């Protein structure tokens, strides 16, 4: 027992050092300038929690030096406090990536306004990391859960109702058009908020006959290799594999569907540009369906929500290509994937499409009318390098919404890029440089 008490003393001292390091790091990080207002909330929370951890550990010293607790009780008691230290580290990591040099400042205000219009009383931290992944996660709720019934519970009062950490890939931080993918991530938040899983999953059935066939094939193969298989267990396992894929894929597809309702064609353009860059069109994973299936759902939605045949000819051509490509049956890379794909048929895609309407109000929807207006009014401004304007003259104007900015941007990129280059006068400038090198000037 004495040896354990000495270890406990060491444990407390070491944890105190870690907590002091967090307080120091928080001071250093605090000196930077942050693009997202939510970063300050996180820093205040981390500072408050780390200081409390220091105080609590000091108090634990006294407890450890007396005899009322046995080794196991003492370990459990101290662990209640020390287990929170890695969480504070993780939070500092979010803030570190959100300073102005790493986060696109132009994105913050429109995105914050947009998120707050969908989920009031929320705050955002836009953080960029060196990984090719977009994500939006609410950290306020999990932190409240984690810190509930701990001595640090009161620190949670410093957090807003919902604090969304928006992660964007660091190397893509300047690519505002690709940030249209954030609509999909917002879709995740709304999928949870509106409990769409409960509405959708009971109506998407795993195809039992296909499972039976697969089990037969698998048990036949095993019989030859390992003797008689427990068929019931095998069937259970196959069903579990397929069902878990369906559950995850329906969430992803629903987030796409909600994203299309929020951002319209901009999500589709951003998603296909990002996905095609590095993903196999027919290869899904246990968590994400194959890009072809995602494109198929988004195309179905676009064709119903937007007058596709009246769009600019470049957009029509691109959408036509994707329509044809997404209609090709998917050849999955695994049997489980194939079964999940068979279960998420056209009927299931329509269910997802319809369910997404319950998560997005009409006012929040990016309609065909808005797309037309943005293409007609906002896109020409961009071609001439005129920014959309946040507030208009003397703050009298209405700020342009993020969905409109990104859609108009895609319209320029896909339909008027030549005009943009001419107005940027790059062509003329490059020509002048070339002439100079050729000795014309």
């Amino acid at each position, binding site marked *: 027992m004495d040896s354990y008490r000495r270890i406990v003393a060491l444990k407390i001292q070491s944890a105190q050092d870690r907590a002091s390091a967090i307080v120091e790091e928080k001071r250093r990080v605090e000196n930077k300038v942050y693009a997202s207002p939510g970063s300050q909330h996180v820093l205040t929370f981390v500072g408050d929690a780390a200081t409390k951890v220091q105080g609590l550990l000091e108090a634990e010293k006294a407890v450890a030096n007396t005899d009322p607790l046995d080794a196991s009780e003492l370990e459990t008691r101290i662990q209640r406090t020390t287990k929170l230290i890695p969480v504070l580290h993780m939070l500092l990591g979010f803030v570190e990536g959100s300073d102005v040099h790493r986060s696109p400042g132009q994105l913050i205000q429109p995105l914050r306004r947009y998120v707050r219009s969908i989920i009031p009383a929320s705050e955002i931290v836009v953080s960029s990391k060196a990984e090719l992944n977009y994500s939006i996660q609410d950290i306020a709720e999990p932190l409240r859960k984690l810190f509930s019934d701990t001595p640090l519970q009161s620190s949670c009062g410093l957090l807003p109702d919902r604090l969304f950490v928006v992660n964007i890939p660091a190397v893509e931080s300047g690519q505002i058009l690709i940030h249209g993918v954030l609509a999909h991530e917002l879709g995740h938040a709304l999928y949870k908020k509106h409990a769409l899983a409960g509405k959708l999953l009971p109506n998407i059935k795993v195809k039992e006959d296909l499972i039976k066939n697969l089990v037969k094939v698998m048990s036949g193969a095993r019989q030859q290799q390992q003797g008689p298989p427990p068929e019931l267990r095998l069937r259970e396992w196959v069903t579990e594999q397929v069902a878990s894929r369906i559950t995850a894929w329906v969430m992803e597809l629903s987030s796409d569907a909600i994203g299309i309702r929020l951002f319209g064609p901009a999500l589709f353009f951003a998603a296909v540009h990002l996905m095609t860059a590095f993903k196999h069109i027919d290869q899904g994973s246990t968590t994400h369906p194959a890009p072809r299936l995602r494109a198929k759902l988004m195309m179905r939605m676009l064709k119903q929500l937007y007058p596709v045949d009246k769009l600019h000819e470049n957009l029509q051509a691109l959408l036509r290509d994707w329509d044809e490509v997404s209609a090709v049956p998917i050849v999955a890379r695994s049997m489980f994937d194939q079964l999940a794909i068979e279960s998420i048929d056209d009927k299931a895609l329509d269910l997802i499409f319809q369910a997404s309407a319950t998560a997005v109000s009409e006012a929040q929807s990016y309609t065909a009318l808005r797309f037309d207006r943005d293409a007609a009014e906002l896109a020409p401004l961009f071609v001439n390098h005129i920014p959309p*304007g946040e507030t208009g003259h003397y703050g009298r104007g209405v700020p342009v919404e993020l969905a409109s900015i990104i859609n108009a941007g895609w319209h320029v990129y896909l339909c008027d890029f030549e005009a943009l280059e001419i107005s*940027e*006068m790059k062509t003329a400038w490059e020509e002048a440089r070339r002439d*100079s090198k050729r000795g014309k000037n």
Partner: protein
Amino acid sequence: MILSAERIRELLEHPAADPADRLVISPLLEERQLKPTTASVDVRLGQRFHVPLRAKLSQLNLLSLTHQADLFKYKDDTFVPIGDYFVLHPGQFVLGETLEWIHLPKNLAAFVIGKSTWGRDGLIIATAIGVHPNFSGILTLEISNVGEIPIYLYPGLAIAQLFLAVVDLTAESVTPVPSAFQVQTSPRTRNVEIEDRDIIQLFRDRLFPDLKQS
């Protein structure tokens, strides 16, 4: 002809139908930026400052092909939030920016001039003051403190004024003139034009033909 503040206001508040023909100065935060009976619009100091790292740069050689790359590598970009300040020490030179995005139509040119309020404290705002027609972007300000006392620079303060002049267009001048600083979104530096290097080479070849490179 220099435009009056009233005429500038008219152009801003009643924009031309074609975006290319619009005068844009955005954001205009308050009406005071366009004082009646004056002939300019006040522009504000932006939030980014571009400071060359003296400890790393031994010289500025505009003819060097690595000039721009060196400046890009050895610079300190500072972002100052609204409400905070940047201290400009005596003799210090930094590149700043206007808070406003400017877009000039083909028939307007502009001149950026410092405000006397700041000038009397020793602050020089811009030396290369001309902005050509068709320009789009933020304006880079060449800010230096020629006084003897440090000056606090607060982003958002009206620090310069923009005079707008009508350009006498001829049929030929309708074609946009290439500008190396077009669509800049932050303070920017660059090499001298490639033509200038060519001319120096040409002089050298004529003066010392025997040294002419093959």
